[in-house]
Protein backbone atom coordinates (compact mmCIF):
# COMPACT_ATOMS: atom_id res chain seq x y z
CA UNK A 1 0.00 0.00 0.00
CA UNK A 2 2.91 2.36 0.61
CA UNK A 3 3.37 2.25 -3.16
CA UNK A 4 -0.06 3.81 -3.52
CA UNK A 5 0.86 6.51 -1.03
CA UNK A 6 3.97 7.23 -3.09
CA UNK A 7 1.88 7.50 -6.22
CA UNK A 8 -0.50 9.81 -4.43
CA UNK A 9 2.47 11.99 -3.46
CA UNK A 10 3.70 12.01 -7.05
CA UNK A 11 0.31 13.21 -8.27
CA UNK A 12 0.31 15.94 -5.63
CA UNK A 13 3.73 17.13 -6.79
CA UNK A 14 2.69 16.96 -10.44
CA UNK A 15 -0.18 19.28 -9.55
CA UNK A 16 2.53 21.77 -8.56
CA UNK A 17 4.26 21.35 -11.90
CA UNK A 18 6.97 18.94 -10.76
CA UNK A 19 8.37 17.26 -13.85
CA UNK A 20 10.56 14.89 -11.89
CA UNK A 21 7.47 13.56 -10.14
CA UNK A 22 5.77 13.28 -13.52
CA UNK A 23 8.65 11.18 -14.81
CA UNK A 24 8.53 8.98 -11.71
CA UNK A 25 4.79 8.49 -12.07
CA UNK A 26 5.23 7.59 -15.71
CA UNK A 27 7.90 5.03 -14.83
CA UNK A 28 5.75 3.51 -12.13
CA UNK A 29 2.42 3.39 -13.96
CA UNK A 30 2.83 3.59 -17.75
CA UNK A 31 3.15 -0.17 -18.26
CA UNK A 32 -0.11 -0.76 -16.43
CA UNK A 33 -1.93 1.95 -18.38
CA UNK A 34 -0.39 0.85 -21.67
CA UNK A 35 -1.60 -2.68 -20.99
CA UNK A 36 -5.10 -1.30 -20.54
CA UNK A 37 -4.88 0.75 -23.76
CA UNK A 38 -3.73 -2.31 -25.70
CA UNK A 39 -6.49 -4.43 -24.23
CA UNK A 40 -9.20 -1.93 -25.07
CA UNK A 41 -7.92 -0.75 -28.43
CA UNK A 42 -6.24 -3.94 -29.72
CA UNK A 43 -4.05 -1.78 -31.90
CA UNK A 44 -0.54 -0.88 -31.00
CA UNK A 45 -0.20 2.47 -32.75
CA UNK A 46 -3.51 3.63 -31.39
CA UNK A 47 -2.62 2.46 -27.90
CA UNK A 48 0.58 4.50 -28.06
CA UNK A 49 -1.32 7.59 -29.13
CA UNK A 50 -3.84 6.98 -26.38
CA UNK A 51 -1.14 6.61 -23.75
CA UNK A 52 0.33 9.91 -24.85
CA UNK A 53 -3.03 11.64 -24.48
CA UNK A 54 -3.63 10.00 -21.13
CA UNK A 55 -0.41 11.31 -19.58
CA UNK A 56 -1.02 14.74 -21.04
CA UNK A 57 -4.38 14.63 -19.26
CA UNK A 58 -2.73 13.44 -16.07
CA UNK A 59 -0.31 16.37 -16.20
CA UNK A 60 -3.09 18.89 -16.74
CA UNK A 61 -5.58 17.39 -14.30
CA UNK A 62 -3.37 16.32 -11.40
CA UNK A 63 -4.70 19.24 -9.38
CA UNK A 64 -8.17 17.77 -9.50
CA UNK A 65 -7.13 14.43 -8.11
CA UNK A 66 -7.47 15.21 -4.43
CA UNK A 67 -11.10 16.11 -4.57
CA UNK A 68 -12.37 13.22 -6.62
CA UNK A 69 -12.39 10.66 -3.82
CA UNK A 70 -10.68 7.86 -5.72
CA UNK A 71 -7.51 5.97 -4.92
CA UNK A 72 -4.63 7.09 -7.13
CA UNK A 73 -4.47 3.94 -9.26
CA UNK A 74 -8.23 4.04 -9.76
CA UNK A 75 -7.94 7.63 -10.84
CA UNK A 76 -5.22 6.78 -13.39
CA UNK A 77 -6.94 3.61 -14.56
CA UNK A 78 -10.22 5.47 -15.00
CA UNK A 79 -8.57 8.19 -17.07
CA UNK A 80 -6.87 5.53 -19.20
CA UNK A 81 -9.92 3.34 -19.60
CA UNK A 82 -12.26 6.22 -20.41
CA UNK A 83 -9.89 7.69 -22.95
CA UNK A 84 -9.30 4.31 -24.61
CA UNK A 85 -13.05 3.64 -24.70
CA UNK A 86 -13.71 7.06 -26.24
CA UNK A 87 -11.22 6.29 -28.98
CA UNK A 88 -12.65 2.86 -29.52
CA UNK A 89 -16.13 4.28 -29.89
CA UNK A 90 -14.94 6.88 -32.34
CA UNK A 91 -13.24 4.17 -34.31
CA UNK A 92 -16.38 2.07 -34.30
CA UNK A 93 -18.31 5.04 -35.58
CA UNK A 94 -15.74 5.77 -38.25
CA UNK A 95 -15.49 2.25 -39.55
CA UNK A 96 -18.09 -0.42 -39.43
CA UNK A 97 -15.61 -3.21 -39.80
CA UNK A 98 -15.41 -5.32 -36.68
CA UNK A 99 -12.94 -7.30 -34.69
CA UNK A 100 -9.47 -6.32 -33.61
CA UNK A 101 -6.40 -8.33 -34.32
CA UNK A 102 -5.94 -10.30 -31.15
CA UNK A 103 -2.75 -11.94 -32.33
CA UNK A 104 -1.21 -8.56 -32.79
CA UNK A 105 -2.09 -7.71 -29.22
CA UNK A 106 -0.54 -10.87 -27.91
CA UNK A 107 2.68 -10.07 -29.73
CA UNK A 108 2.82 -6.51 -28.53
CA UNK A 109 5.09 -6.61 -25.53
CA UNK A 110 8.22 -4.61 -26.26
CA UNK A 111 9.94 -5.33 -23.01
CA UNK A 112 8.91 -6.71 -19.69
CA UNK A 113 7.66 -4.21 -17.16
CA UNK A 114 9.94 -3.47 -14.26
CA UNK A 115 9.30 -4.72 -10.75
CA UNK A 116 7.79 -1.40 -9.74
CA UNK A 117 5.19 -1.59 -12.46
CA UNK A 118 4.32 -5.14 -11.48
CA UNK A 119 3.96 -4.18 -7.86
CA UNK A 120 1.54 -1.46 -8.80
CA UNK A 121 -0.40 -3.78 -11.06
CA UNK A 122 -0.96 -6.36 -8.36
CA UNK A 123 -4.05 -5.31 -6.52
CA UNK A 124 -5.25 -6.55 -3.20
CA UNK A 125 -8.81 -5.96 -4.22
CA UNK A 126 -10.15 -8.50 -6.65
CA UNK A 127 -13.47 -8.57 -4.88
CA UNK A 128 -15.33 -7.67 -8.02
CA UNK A 129 -13.92 -10.75 -9.74
CA UNK A 130 -15.32 -12.93 -7.00
CA UNK A 131 -18.67 -11.18 -7.16
CA UNK A 132 -18.85 -11.51 -10.94
CA UNK A 133 -18.55 -15.27 -10.57
CA UNK A 134 -21.81 -15.18 -8.63
CA UNK A 135 -23.57 -13.90 -11.75
CA UNK A 136 -24.48 -16.05 -14.71
CA UNK A 137 -21.47 -16.10 -17.05
CA UNK A 138 -23.30 -14.20 -19.79
CA UNK A 139 -24.29 -11.42 -17.44
CA UNK A 140 -20.83 -11.18 -15.98
CA UNK A 141 -19.58 -11.05 -19.55
CA UNK A 142 -21.90 -8.15 -20.31
CA UNK A 143 -20.57 -6.15 -17.37
CA UNK A 144 -17.00 -6.81 -18.45
CA UNK A 145 -17.86 -5.96 -22.03
CA UNK A 146 -19.28 -2.64 -20.96
CA UNK A 147 -16.23 -1.77 -18.90
CA UNK A 148 -13.39 -3.17 -20.99
CA UNK A 149 -14.86 -2.82 -24.49
CA UNK A 150 -17.11 0.16 -24.00
CA UNK A 151 -20.10 -1.77 -25.27
CA UNK A 152 -23.32 0.23 -25.33
CA UNK A 153 -26.71 -1.25 -24.45
CA UNK A 154 -27.43 -1.51 -28.15
CA UNK A 155 -24.24 -3.43 -28.80
CA UNK A 156 -24.79 -5.69 -25.81
CA UNK A 157 -28.35 -6.40 -26.91
CA UNK A 158 -27.07 -7.37 -30.36
CA UNK A 159 -24.33 -9.55 -28.93
CA UNK A 160 -26.62 -11.48 -26.61
CA UNK A 161 -29.44 -11.40 -29.13
CA UNK A 162 -32.07 -9.95 -26.81
CA UNK A 163 -34.30 -6.89 -27.19
CA UNK A 164 -32.78 -3.62 -26.00
CA UNK A 165 -35.13 -3.26 -23.04
CA UNK A 166 -34.47 -6.83 -21.95
CA UNK A 167 -30.77 -6.06 -22.06
CA UNK A 168 -31.24 -3.00 -19.85
CA UNK A 169 -33.27 -4.93 -17.32
CA UNK A 170 -30.75 -7.76 -17.34
CA UNK A 171 -27.76 -5.56 -16.81
CA UNK A 172 -29.40 -3.37 -14.18
CA UNK A 173 -30.36 -6.43 -12.16
CA UNK A 174 -26.85 -7.75 -12.52
CA UNK A 175 -25.47 -4.46 -11.26
CA UNK A 176 -27.75 -4.59 -8.22
CA UNK A 177 -26.63 -8.11 -7.42
CA UNK A 178 -23.06 -7.07 -7.91
CA UNK A 179 -23.48 -4.20 -5.49
CA UNK A 180 -25.12 -6.46 -2.96
CA UNK A 181 -22.15 -8.83 -3.15
CA UNK A 182 -19.59 -6.02 -3.04
CA UNK A 183 -21.07 -4.51 0.13
CA UNK A 184 -21.54 -7.87 1.79
Amino acid at each position, binding site marked *: MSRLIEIEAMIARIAL*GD*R*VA*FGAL*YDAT*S*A*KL*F*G*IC*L*RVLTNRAEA*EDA*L*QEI*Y*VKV*WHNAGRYQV*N*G*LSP*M*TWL*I*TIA*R*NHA*IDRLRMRRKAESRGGGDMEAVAA*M*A*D*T*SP*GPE*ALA*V*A*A*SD*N*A*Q*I*ERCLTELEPERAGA*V*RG*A*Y*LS*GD*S*YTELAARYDVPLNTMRTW*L*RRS*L*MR*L*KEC*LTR
Partner: protein
Amino acid sequence: MTGAGEHHEDDTVLAAEHVLGLLEGDDLIRAEARLQSDAAYRALHALWAEDFASLTDEIAPVAPPSRVRSAIDKRLFGMRREGLLRRLGLWPALTAAALAAGTYLVVTNLDLLRPEPAGPSLRAEIAAEDGGLVVQVAYDPADPEALQVSRPSGAPASGRSLELWLIAGEAAPVSLGVLPDDREGRVTVPEALRPLLSQAVLAISDEPAGGSPTGAPTGAVLGAGPVTTL
Protein backbone atom coordinates in the same frame (compact mmCIF):
# COMPACT_ATOMS: atom_id res chain seq x y z
CA MET B 1 -40.27 -0.63 -1.04
CA THR B 2 -40.16 2.94 0.18
CA GLY B 3 -39.68 5.84 -2.12
CA ALA B 4 -36.36 6.67 -0.47
CA GLY B 5 -35.12 3.12 -0.74
CA GLU B 6 -36.15 2.95 -4.34
CA HIS B 7 -34.38 6.19 -5.02
CA HIS B 8 -31.25 4.85 -3.41
CA GLU B 9 -31.36 1.67 -5.47
CA ASP B 10 -31.92 3.65 -8.61
CA ASP B 11 -28.92 5.81 -7.85
CA THR B 12 -26.75 2.79 -7.20
CA VAL B 13 -27.56 1.36 -10.60
CA LEU B 14 -27.46 4.77 -12.25
CA ALA B 15 -23.96 5.39 -10.88
CA ALA B 16 -22.82 1.98 -12.15
CA GLU B 17 -24.24 2.66 -15.60
CA HIS B 18 -22.58 6.06 -15.48
CA VAL B 19 -19.16 4.60 -14.69
CA LEU B 20 -19.57 1.93 -17.35
CA GLY B 21 -20.40 4.60 -19.93
CA LEU B 22 -23.86 3.21 -20.64
CA LEU B 23 -25.70 6.49 -20.15
CA GLU B 24 -26.55 8.58 -23.16
CA GLY B 25 -28.25 11.84 -24.00
CA ASP B 26 -30.24 13.56 -21.27
CA ASP B 27 -29.56 10.79 -18.76
CA LEU B 28 -25.85 11.36 -19.16
CA ILE B 29 -26.13 15.12 -18.90
CA ARG B 30 -28.20 14.86 -15.71
CA ALA B 31 -25.82 12.34 -14.19
CA GLU B 32 -22.80 14.50 -15.00
CA ALA B 33 -24.51 17.44 -13.31
CA ARG B 34 -25.19 15.38 -10.20
CA LEU B 35 -21.56 14.36 -10.07
CA GLN B 36 -20.75 18.02 -9.58
CA SER B 37 -23.55 18.90 -7.17
CA ASP B 38 -24.53 15.76 -5.27
CA ALA B 39 -21.97 14.39 -2.81
CA ALA B 40 -23.92 11.18 -2.13
CA TYR B 41 -24.11 10.42 -5.82
CA ARG B 42 -20.43 11.28 -6.22
CA ALA B 43 -19.58 8.75 -3.50
CA LEU B 44 -21.61 6.02 -5.22
CA HIS B 45 -19.90 6.84 -8.49
CA ALA B 46 -16.46 6.73 -6.86
CA LEU B 47 -17.14 3.34 -5.28
CA TRP B 48 -18.15 1.85 -8.58
CA ALA B 49 -15.16 3.39 -10.30
CA GLU B 50 -12.95 1.73 -7.71
CA ASP B 51 -14.66 -1.64 -8.09
CA PHE B 52 -14.67 -1.63 -11.87
CA ALA B 53 -11.07 -0.44 -12.01
CA SER B 54 -10.05 -3.70 -10.39
CA LEU B 55 -11.38 -5.47 -13.48
CA THR B 56 -8.09 -4.34 -14.99
CA ASP B 57 -6.07 -6.34 -12.45
CA GLU B 58 -5.90 -9.27 -14.82
CA ILE B 59 -4.52 -7.10 -17.64
CA ALA B 60 -0.79 -7.63 -17.86
CA PRO B 61 1.36 -4.51 -17.81
CA VAL B 62 3.22 -3.86 -21.05
CA ALA B 63 6.15 -1.47 -21.09
CA PRO B 64 5.44 1.18 -23.73
CA PRO B 65 8.16 2.05 -26.24
CA SER B 66 10.32 5.01 -25.29
CA ARG B 67 8.97 7.10 -28.16
CA VAL B 68 5.73 7.57 -26.22
CA ARG B 69 7.57 9.20 -23.35
CA SER B 70 9.49 11.38 -25.78
CA ALA B 71 6.32 12.48 -27.49
CA ILE B 72 4.73 13.36 -24.16
CA ASP B 73 7.77 15.38 -23.09
CA LYS B 74 7.83 17.16 -26.39
CA ARG B 75 4.17 18.06 -26.15
CA LEU B 76 4.19 19.13 -22.55
CA PHE B 77 7.62 20.61 -22.18
CA GLY B 78 8.66 21.27 -25.76
CA MET B 79 11.71 19.09 -25.64
CA ARG B 80 12.98 16.25 -27.67
CA ARG B 81 14.63 13.35 -25.96
CA GLU B 82 14.20 10.99 -28.79
CA GLY B 83 15.08 10.74 -32.40
CA LEU B 84 18.70 10.99 -31.52
CA LEU B 85 19.63 7.39 -32.01
CA ARG B 86 17.56 7.30 -35.14
CA ARG B 87 19.41 10.34 -36.39
CA LEU B 88 22.69 8.76 -35.53
CA GLY B 89 21.50 5.82 -37.57
CA LEU B 90 22.53 8.03 -40.46
CA TRP B 91 26.04 7.22 -39.42
CA PRO B 92 25.85 3.47 -39.31
CA ALA B 93 29.53 2.95 -39.79
CA LEU B 94 30.41 5.44 -37.11
CA THR B 95 27.94 4.11 -34.61
CA ALA B 96 29.24 0.63 -35.19
CA ALA B 97 32.75 1.92 -34.69
CA ALA B 98 31.74 3.62 -31.47
CA LEU B 99 30.13 0.49 -30.16
CA ALA B 100 33.10 -1.60 -31.17
CA ALA B 101 35.30 0.78 -29.24
CA GLY B 102 33.07 0.34 -26.22
CA THR B 103 31.88 3.90 -26.39
CA TYR B 104 28.24 4.35 -25.59
CA LEU B 105 26.35 7.39 -26.58
CA VAL B 106 24.59 9.14 -23.84
CA VAL B 107 22.31 12.09 -23.96
CA THR B 108 22.37 14.21 -20.92
CA ASN B 109 20.20 17.19 -20.79
CA LEU B 110 20.25 19.09 -17.56
CA ASP B 111 17.39 21.23 -18.73
CA LEU B 112 14.98 18.34 -18.57
CA LEU B 113 14.64 18.92 -14.88
CA ARG B 114 14.38 22.64 -15.05
CA PRO B 115 11.02 23.85 -13.83
CA GLU B 116 10.55 26.84 -16.06
CA PRO B 117 12.21 27.09 -19.41
CA ALA B 118 11.82 30.52 -20.91
CA GLY B 119 13.54 32.75 -23.40
CA PRO B 120 15.02 32.20 -26.79
CA SER B 121 18.48 30.89 -25.88
CA LEU B 122 19.51 27.40 -26.85
CA ARG B 123 21.75 24.89 -25.23
CA ALA B 124 22.94 21.35 -25.52
CA GLU B 125 25.14 19.07 -23.54
CA ILE B 126 27.17 16.38 -25.18
CA ALA B 127 28.74 13.80 -22.92
CA ALA B 128 30.36 10.41 -23.13
CA GLU B 129 28.76 7.93 -20.79
CA ASP B 130 31.93 7.43 -18.77
CA GLY B 131 32.16 11.19 -18.22
CA GLY B 132 35.47 11.20 -20.10
CA LEU B 133 34.12 13.96 -22.28
CA VAL B 134 31.58 16.61 -21.39
CA VAL B 135 30.90 19.52 -23.70
CA GLN B 136 28.31 22.18 -23.04
CA VAL B 137 27.10 24.33 -25.88
CA ALA B 138 25.10 27.53 -25.54
CA TYR B 139 23.67 29.76 -28.23
CA ASP B 140 22.62 33.28 -27.50
CA PRO B 141 20.58 34.87 -30.30
CA ALA B 142 22.05 38.24 -29.25
CA ASP B 143 25.40 36.83 -30.33
CA PRO B 144 24.23 34.92 -33.38
CA GLU B 145 27.53 34.20 -35.06
CA ALA B 146 28.91 31.60 -32.74
CA LEU B 147 28.21 28.92 -30.20
CA GLN B 148 29.75 29.26 -26.77
CA VAL B 149 31.47 25.98 -26.14
CA SER B 150 32.73 24.85 -22.80
CA ARG B 151 34.50 21.58 -22.18
CA PRO B 152 34.66 20.88 -18.43
CA SER B 153 35.88 17.38 -18.99
CA GLY B 154 37.86 15.55 -21.67
CA ALA B 155 40.30 16.42 -24.42
CA PRO B 156 41.17 15.15 -27.87
CA ALA B 157 43.54 12.22 -28.08
CA SER B 158 47.12 13.09 -28.94
CA GLY B 159 47.38 14.23 -32.54
CA ARG B 160 43.59 14.16 -32.95
CA SER B 161 40.81 16.76 -32.93
CA LEU B 162 37.26 16.81 -31.58
CA GLU B 163 34.84 17.84 -34.28
CA LEU B 164 31.37 19.22 -33.67
CA TRP B 165 28.52 18.20 -35.97
CA LEU B 166 25.04 19.50 -36.48
CA ILE B 167 22.33 17.04 -37.49
CA ALA B 168 19.10 18.65 -38.62
CA GLY B 169 16.14 16.45 -39.32
CA GLU B 170 16.97 13.64 -41.67
CA ALA B 171 19.87 15.47 -43.27
CA ALA B 172 23.45 14.25 -43.14
CA PRO B 173 25.67 15.66 -40.39
CA VAL B 174 27.15 19.05 -41.17
CA SER B 175 30.47 20.02 -39.64
CA LEU B 176 30.59 23.04 -37.35
CA GLY B 177 34.34 22.71 -37.15
CA VAL B 178 36.78 21.40 -34.61
CA LEU B 179 36.47 22.32 -30.97
CA PRO B 180 38.89 24.97 -29.76
CA ASP B 181 41.94 23.81 -27.83
CA ASP B 182 40.91 25.95 -24.87
CA ARG B 183 38.25 24.62 -22.53
CA GLU B 184 36.13 27.71 -23.16
CA GLY B 185 35.75 29.00 -26.68
CA ARG B 186 33.58 29.79 -29.63
CA VAL B 187 32.59 27.84 -32.68
CA THR B 188 31.30 29.89 -35.57
CA VAL B 189 27.96 28.86 -37.02
CA PRO B 190 27.46 29.63 -40.72
CA GLU B 191 24.44 31.85 -41.16
CA ALA B 192 22.58 29.26 -43.22
CA LEU B 193 22.73 26.78 -40.37
CA ARG B 194 21.53 29.09 -37.59
CA PRO B 195 17.81 28.59 -38.19
CA LEU B 196 18.33 24.85 -37.94
CA LEU B 197 19.92 24.95 -34.51
CA SER B 198 16.82 24.84 -32.38
CA GLN B 199 15.66 21.59 -33.95
CA ALA B 200 19.06 20.00 -34.23
CA VAL B 201 21.15 17.40 -32.50
CA LEU B 202 24.79 18.15 -31.86
CA ALA B 203 27.40 15.43 -31.82
CA ILE B 204 31.14 15.15 -31.37
CA SER B 205 33.42 12.76 -33.17
CA ASP B 206 37.06 11.89 -32.90
CA GLU B 207 38.86 13.07 -36.06
CA PRO B 208 42.35 13.51 -37.44
CA ALA B 209 44.07 16.74 -36.34
CA GLY B 210 42.34 19.70 -37.95
CA GLY B 211 39.11 17.83 -38.60
CA SER B 212 37.59 15.27 -40.90
CA PRO B 213 39.34 15.24 -44.26
CA THR B 214 36.15 14.18 -46.04
CA GLY B 215 33.56 16.63 -44.75
CA ALA B 216 31.72 13.75 -43.12
CA PRO B 217 32.53 12.17 -39.76
CA THR B 218 35.24 9.54 -40.06
CA GLY B 219 36.07 8.68 -36.44
CA ALA B 220 34.20 7.39 -33.43
CA VAL B 221 31.15 9.25 -32.19
CA LEU B 222 32.01 10.27 -28.67
CA GLY B 223 28.69 11.74 -27.66
CA ALA B 224 25.59 13.56 -28.84
CA GLY B 225 22.83 15.68 -27.40
CA PRO B 226 19.71 17.45 -28.60
CA VAL B 227 19.55 21.22 -28.69
CA THR B 228 16.95 22.45 -26.29
CA THR B 229 15.28 25.80 -25.95
CA LEU B 230 15.87 27.55 -22.68
